[in-house]
């Protein structure tokens, strides 16, 4: 699903965020991306979502070479990816329903179809009763679940999460991780950047560990 082939990323100003990183994630697998702040976790996720472009190396997503993807094609690639952020990135002036519906509206689905799928996604994350609420009226855990519903509503084959539990207490974090496991069980490839090592240690998934931009350990992943 994801293949990094000697990927390097140098930001303007000379900082090397990633140096010759190579790894491979199979379709339907789930893995954690770990490392300290500034180790390059976010950069790695951004490269996959085409928010940044690699300086060197080849990057493949679902068999397509992202290193040479023209700008026009970027939206099509992003629709294959559900993204989840530490600060949720919800639209504060829209209801929960409208936030979750956004990817479907963008993809041009019909009205009835959107309603059906949004409710299914909200049901999945346990927020079916809150569709008319605004994000500020929700707790942090609920907001993150809205973010997850938005990420999965158009059933992308890949989920990327950048510190999804960073602002949540341990119990809520476990709930969120459990949600990711459920999506993985139905075949979605899941890659989660996190420095919550206690939580990760208890879960039986691959780890991709970065240290100062280099891949230092790849537990289980081939």
């Amino acid at each position: 699903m994801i293949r990094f082939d000697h990927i390097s990323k140098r930001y303007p100003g000379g900082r090397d965020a990633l140096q010759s990183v190579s790894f491979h994630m199979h379709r339907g697998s789930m893995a954690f991306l770990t490392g300290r702040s500034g180790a390059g976790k976010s950069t790695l996720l951004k490269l996959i979502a085409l928010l940044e472009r690699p300086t060197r190396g080849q990057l493949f997503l679902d068999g397509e070479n992202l290193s040479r993807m023209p700008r026009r094609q970027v939206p099509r690639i992003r629709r294959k990816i559900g993204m989840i952020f530490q600060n949720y990135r919800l639209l504060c002036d829209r209801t929960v329903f409208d936030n979750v519906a956004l990817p479907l509206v963008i993809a041009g689905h019909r009205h009835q179809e959107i309603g059906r799928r949004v409710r299914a996604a909200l049901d999945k994350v346990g927020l079916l009763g809150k569709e008319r609420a605004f994000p500020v009226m929700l707790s942090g855990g609920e907001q993150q679940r809205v973010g997850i519903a938005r990420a999965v509503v158009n059933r992308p084959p890949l989920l990327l999460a950048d510190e999804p539990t960073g602002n949540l207490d341990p119990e809520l974090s476990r709930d969120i991780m459990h949600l990711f496991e459920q999506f993985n069980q139905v075949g979605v490839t899941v890659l989660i950047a996190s420095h919550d090592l206690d939580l990760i240690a208890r879960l039986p998934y691959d780890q991709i560990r970065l240290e100062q931009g280099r891949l230092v350990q790849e537990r289980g992943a081939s």
Partner: protein
Amino acid sequence: MNFARGLNNYVGRHLQVALSSLGRLYRTPLASLMTTAVIGIALALPAGLYALTGNLQQLSNRWDGSTSLSLFLKKSLPEGRIEALRQTLEQWPEIARLQFISADQALEEFRHLSGFGEALDALDENPLPAVIAVQPAPAYRDAESASALLERLRRLPEVELAQLDLQWVQRFNAIVDIVRRSIAVVASLLGLAVLLIIGNTIRLEIQNRREEIEITRLVGATDAFIRRPFLYTGLWYGIGGALLATVLVEIALLQLQAPARELAGLYQSDFRLQMAGPGEILTLMATGAILGLLGAWLAVGRHLSAIEPA
């Protein structure tokens, strides 16, 4: 079937974006109204001047239509020769209508209108000549044909003097033309102003919705999708401004209606100030819509691509 459904879906989406853009303007009524008012005034100025000069041109067209040549006949022509001349002239294809004013009639009219009655009584004989007013046929009313006709009439032995009352109409037309051209310059400048106003408004709107743009990009929105609401906002501003301009122009013309009629009355004319018709209103609307769309397009092209999610 599939195509029709796709088209239906496409139109539906556009309609939805159009309405939600309108709703967004409605939610900030004061700011929207102020922008619309500025655009409306900027559009009303040239539109109103156009309507006025249009009326002036119409006025001069009426005069064009009544272009007449006055033939002052030689004095002491016998009645018979005058009658013969009238009959000859009536055969000319260039001439639509003749009006004969005998010397006595001319005198009577002059006495009546000038108030010099007593002075005229002191004269031994009538100083005024008989006049034939010649109305050219419609095809001969333009300046060139009328001049040619004048030349032919001037050569008639019975005619002392032939005059064409066209020159001042031409001068008047030339002035109206200059005014119209100046208005075109003013209109272009104000059109540019409208473009900049809308462009700037949309630029601010883009900045206000930066977060939203970033997030929609993150979930895979195309440039066209992100552009659409801003283009519709520009379109609504343009149409709203044009609507306001129409109201302003109509009110102004209505205000001028009574004095214009009074003035026309002084000239024994039944001239009425024309209000802006459906064609003119439509033109104004289209102008507003195009300027709005164009202004938004310029702003969107410059500022939207700079916003990338990080």
